[in-house]
């Protein structure tokens, strides 16, 4: 299979080389004429990596160019982002990043080796999914206000599992603490799956996780959803209230994956990428794939996407400062 894909791409590259002279006027004409790589600042697996592979596959189908996903994990995403911004700004190196790199990192790290405005050009949001607040189904709590009452009665003892210290789920938990004036016991895990499994097994009474990681346990009835963190209810189950409806109007947050280019990529290329990806995100099969993890396709214009990230980063920064979330 790999061989076939390789051969096909060789043939395509050869084809493009023959056409080399015909185009070369606008930077977007003839783009792409060689393989594109999408850098993912994580190990394979997970929502961001999967988004990159779905988009990569569709782009290469439409453009006849190979799209290679390159995982550059490590250092809270620093390594992958830095690798992107150090690459030539020609549209052949893109970055698939998520809330963590541009919402959380600037909020909790005193200095980070990149800056959204200075180093990157947002293209569009690919996929956005809610986080959920869940309890183990044996815990006699049916609503957020009951959970908050429990936390008020026994401050600092009601455990909530999250996928890690300094994760978006942890920040949103702190945000809930601040907004509702309560104190949960934060129990961090190494990633979403072990965290939600701990709540499903009853090790920790409550949990805070991406909807996608929680889904198997929601379906099996081991955990109960009390609220989603997004401003609107989720299409997965319209009966779950939002935090806003549950009496914590301040908190709204989501986990998104989005595509970026290094700053300096010619605008026509950004537009070409945006236009093509917006079309891909309309495809029913792509929508279905994202829906499996509770996600909805993005597709907003680059400037809208950029503004949304900046707004999110600002509110997360306030939370992190007020709650004192920072690496020791």
């Amino acid at each position: 299979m790999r061989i076939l894909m390789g051969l096909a791409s060789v043939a395509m590259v050869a084809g493009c080389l023959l056409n080399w002279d015909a185009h070369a006027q606008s930077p977007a004409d003839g783009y792409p004429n060689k393989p594109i790589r999408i850098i993912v600042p994580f190990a394979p697996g997970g929502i961001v990596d999967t988004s990159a592979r779905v988009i990569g596959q569709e782009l290469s189908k439409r453009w006849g160019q190979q799209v290679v996903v390159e995982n550059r994990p490590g250092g809270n995403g620093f390594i992958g982002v830095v690798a992107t911004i150090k690459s030539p700004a020609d549209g052949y190196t893109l970055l698939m990043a998520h809330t963590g790199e541009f919402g959380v990192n600037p909020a909790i790290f005193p200095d980070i080796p990149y800056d959204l405005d200075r180093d990157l050009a947002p293209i569009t949001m690919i996929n956005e999914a809610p986080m959920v607040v869940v309890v183990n189904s044996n815990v006699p709590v049916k609503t957020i206000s009951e959970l908050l009452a429990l936390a008020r009665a026994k401050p600092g003892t009601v455990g909530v599992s999250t996928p890690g210290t300094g994760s978006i789920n942890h920040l949103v938990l702190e945000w809930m603490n601040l907004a509702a004036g309560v104190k949960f016991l934060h129990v961090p895990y190494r990633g979403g799956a072990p965290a939600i499994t701990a709540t499903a097994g009853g090790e920790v009474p409550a949990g805070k996780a991406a909807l996608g990681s929680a889904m198997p346990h929601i379906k099996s009835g081991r955990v109960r959803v009390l609220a989603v963190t997004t401003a609107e209810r989720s299409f997965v189950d319209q009966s779950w209230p939002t935090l806003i409806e549950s009496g914590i109007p301040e908190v709204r947050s989501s986990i998104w994956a989005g595509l970026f280019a290094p700053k300096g990529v010619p605008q026509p290329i950004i537009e070409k990428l945006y236009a093509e990806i917006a079309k891909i995100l309309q495809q029913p099969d792509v929508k279905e794939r994202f829906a499996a993890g509770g996600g909805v396709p993005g597709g907003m214009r680059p400037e809208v996407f950029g503004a949304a990230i900046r707004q999110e980063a600002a509110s997360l920064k306030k939370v992190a400062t007020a709650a004192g979330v920072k690496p020791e």
Partner: protein
Amino acid sequence: MDILSNLALGFGVAISLQNLIYCFVGVFLGTLIGVLPGIGPVATVAMLLPLTFNLSPATAMIMLAGIYYGAQYGGSTTAILVNIPGESSSVVTTIDGHRMAKQGRAGPALGMAAIASFVAGSLATLVVALFSPPLAEIALKFGPADYFSLMVFGLVGAVVLARGSLRKAIAMVVLGLLLGMVGTDLNSGQQRFTFGIPALAEGISFAALAMGMFGVAEVIYNLEQRAAVRQVNVPSIGRILPTLAELWQCMWSIMRGTGIGAVLGILPGGGALLASFAAYTVEKKVARAPKDFGNGDIRGVAAPEAANNAGAQTSFIPMLTLGVPSNPTMALMIGALMIQGIQPGPQAMLQRPELFWGIVASMWIGNLFLLLLNLPLVGLWVRLLAVPYRLLFPAILMFCCIGVYSINNNPFDLFQLVVFSALGYMLLKLGCEPAPLILGLVLGPMMEEYLRRALLISLGDPTVLVTSPLSAFFLIAALGLLVSIAVPAIRNQREVAMKE
């Protein structure tokens, strides 16, 4: 009977031409990436993920599962031939397996690895078919205190791995635990011992350490011996397959290994990792003439290989029945199923029985493919050893370099390889064996994580470690093991002292 009709349904799915082909492709690719150091099943499954979108869920899972357990098979080949453990589970195989290869018995070692894996894989598949739902519940019952005590037990067992000095083995375990501390502390987010290098924030690269301390250090050591002795040392090819007597000798080792692997494989978070170590430790304790262990005892290949392959099969149990991934590869497979619109879990088993039983049946077929694929390859691998070493070692180095780099695509990992090659060489010269260190490295962060989490949840009450029956059991077992190691060692030392 229910189970028979279910299995019939499963084989009906698995035996379709398309599924047979994809099963073969999976195990073939798995063997290939298993043989090549560094490139693990996680990366391969992730790369193939988009290709599975257009396959039926059962076909996709059959292929991806084949890659996963195929890689377990393949990993033992490199461990035996060139002393490079591709994954932590094949570290133990290097101890006796590579020793056998050096004695010119690579053929029987490889053959035994394949046969033990096949027997264990087949039996474990049966376990998956018969006991999945009840076993999955065990996985959920394991709390942080239980895991911590299991890790303590595992670490005590690591000391048994050593051939030589007990004090050196303990020190190597502790050094491994310390190296495991490098990286971001889970509870506080503190960066520990990273010197501000972002690439170290997620810890030391396991592949760089394992390949440096085993593979590269071994190459340097061999070249040095040749420079000193100046003779070409080609081991004779010898037999290709183990004899019937050897098979008979290993039968119970394989059975015990299978049992240990099948049980530990179910535990998410480190259980499967311990399987091969635990199996080796048990063999060394129960076997007759344990002195041969570490000097090329074929039982030291059979037991851990059986254990890691049995564990590879049963690690599907929590994934298929609960939707709980027991390792990163399983997490990817859950992703693959969810993209297909299937939520792995109890509902999926009831609503899509053909999927569950199809995968189970294909596991057995896949194991058969692996045996048929690997036994003829043994001859080829063994002949590879007859290639003059000066032509072989550059290839080993190159594969190590590519493998280490390809995990994170970061050249910094190659510098880690250099550092650990030098450290490994130095320790080798000082008579310290690397296997206990590796187990310490892998278990260290988990041990700390589970202990601190147990205390966090209990609000600082340390009695959780003994009030949980599972935890108490493992602690007592660890203590027993410790005594059984320490008493003979102390007695030996006294005898030596008396003689002096």
